[in-house]
């Protein structure tokens, strides 16, 4: 079954690129600059993995991650943090994320990580 990946990033060009890259790699993609909708989704519609930008303008990606990981419904959804900030790589575990990738990245590295967490 096609895996469903949601991308949360406030930059449109990054959303576009993720869309093209992940669709090409055979995933279903939904992109958004706002993560709030995730908390309202019924269990059935939850994605198989979330790519979450660390520094979303307005809301901190780390806080969103903490929230999703603390809720029973969303707890199991794997979250890979994405950031242009090197130092974020040292602290992703603190707020419950499963993994971390730094911008810019190699496509294969990203796809390997996604595969690992979607158990393909």
């Amino acid at each position, binding site marked *: 079954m096609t895996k469903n990946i949601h991308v949360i990033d406030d*930059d449109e*060009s*990054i959303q*576009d*690129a*993720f869309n*093209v*890259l992940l669709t*090409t790699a055979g995933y279903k993609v939904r992109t958004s600059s706002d993560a709030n909708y995730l908390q309202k989704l019924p269990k059935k519609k939850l994605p198989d993995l979330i790519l979450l930008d660390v520094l979303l303008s307005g809301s901190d990606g780390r806080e969103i991650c903490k929230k999703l990981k603390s809720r029973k419904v969303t707890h199991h959804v794997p979250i890979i943090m994405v950031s*242009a*900030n*090197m*130092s974020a790589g*040292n602290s992703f575990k603190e707020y419950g994320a499963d993994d971390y990738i730094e*911008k*810019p*990245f*190699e*496509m294969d590295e990203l796809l390997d990580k996604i595969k690992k967490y979607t158990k393909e």
Partner: protein
Amino acid sequence: MSSKQKEFRKIRQFVLMNADSIQKEANRLHRKYLDVGSMQSEFIGKYHNNHIKILQEIAKHLEASDTKKSSEIFKKLGTIFAKQSVQDELTLEEAVDGNIFLKQALWKKIKEERLLKKISIEDFFVLSQNVGTYIDVLTSELAFTYHQELQYVENNLRYLSEASKILSSSLDYQTTLNAIATLAVPEISDWCSVDILDENSKLRQVAVAHKDAKKIKWAKELRKQQTIDMNAPTGIANVLRTGKSEIYPHITDSMLVAASKTKKELRLIRSIGLTSVMIVPIFSEKKPIGTISFVTTETSRHYNHGDLLMAEELGTRASVAIENSKLYKGSQDAITLRDDFISIASHELKTPVTSVKMFTQVLKKHSEQIGDAKAVNHLSRMDKQLNKLTELIYDLLNISRIQAGKMEFNKNLFDFDHAVTEIIDILSQTVTRHTFKVYGRTNKKVRGDQERIGQVVNNLISNAIKYSPKSKKIIVKLTTDRDNVYVAVRDFGIGIGKVYLDKIFERFYRVYDANNKTYPGLGIGLYISSEIIKRHGGKLWVDSKVGKGSTFHFSIPINGKKSLKL
């Protein structure tokens, strides 16, 4: 007229008529008994006039019965002559001796004229007593004031030298001016105030000191109550307007009355007990921007021309200090702005690079799938350049982090040899022209940031490649001793001139080759590397010969617990 009065009148007239020849006789005696050849000729006329004045005063008060009262005049003369002598840099002997010989010459001439013959013993006694007292009062006052003045001059010089030291020691002029004001009290003045025009052209008292510490608050209060009228014809306002200093050796009550607008103000200003005032300007870009005011109160110290010269000199030096601190602050602001900009810009650059890289890789994958070898080749090159661009962005980010003291390190125990050879392996895959030879092993585990140390190795080898375009070999040597591991990266390239050896570790410094050409790069790789090594408690250095090549070495302490300042 009594015969007594008549005789005294004769003597008086004689002295007044022959003052000049008496003075000449004094000079002759002076020259005869003491060597006065050293006295500068320009002073001879000046002191001639002083002696004439003394003789005239003596003549006027010959038969005075109240010597105490008439002595006051000679006391005043003594003060004036002492100040002149100090300004003219005469010795105390030079200043005093002339007056003693003057007395001798006066008696000699009076005797020669037989003017004492008809005078009674009592009158002769009064006469000799008076003349003697006058000269004594004059010389003792002269000596006393001379010493006091000399002390002032010495204080002035000491103050000026101390103040200069303070002025050049700090680039924060607020602190500096405070120190200047404090230092002036009590040696130079009882009260010192520094006032500077702020950016809104409002005069602000930036520093104030008073000999009575309790009065500082009062002095500040005074300034608040009595705002300075910027149109006033004299005082701080005038000094600011004209850029010319003012001196008031003797402040009189009528001056206070003229300066006060209200009775309340007059009362206040009278309560200060002003004696003497000097105000000198402080300049910035040749415009007066402030003043230093020196005030003496209720003391005998009256400022003179010499004091003013000192104060003006101080004003000039303070101006230079303020100028320097302004330039310094400006450059610091510019540096902060630049570093902030680099930090923001490099971060912002990452986003478009990320998306371009993603699209490039998607296209490359697609081209691979449809078997378009040419497109795959081109896209791979694009991807490589994007990686270079990313590295440059990282360098910029690193440099702004180092500047802000925010460079982060991860501390881990790692296999040193493995970390170095891993970098060399990765580089070998991308390098076409050069070959690497690795010698030695350390067999040591090191505590530090493996990625950052790898960054240093990468940087040194990349430089070796870049700066040896015409040779092929690059040698990497690994060695160790009890305390450190060492890496040496040697190339056989253009080398570095002696004069540049220290500079290459500076930020933004780039080496020029023999044809005055630079090589690509931002000139920050070595700076970042040396910062990384420094933070690990190690050293980074270079041996080089122009045309022969360079060897870069670095050391990392093995026992990282002790020296790792991460």
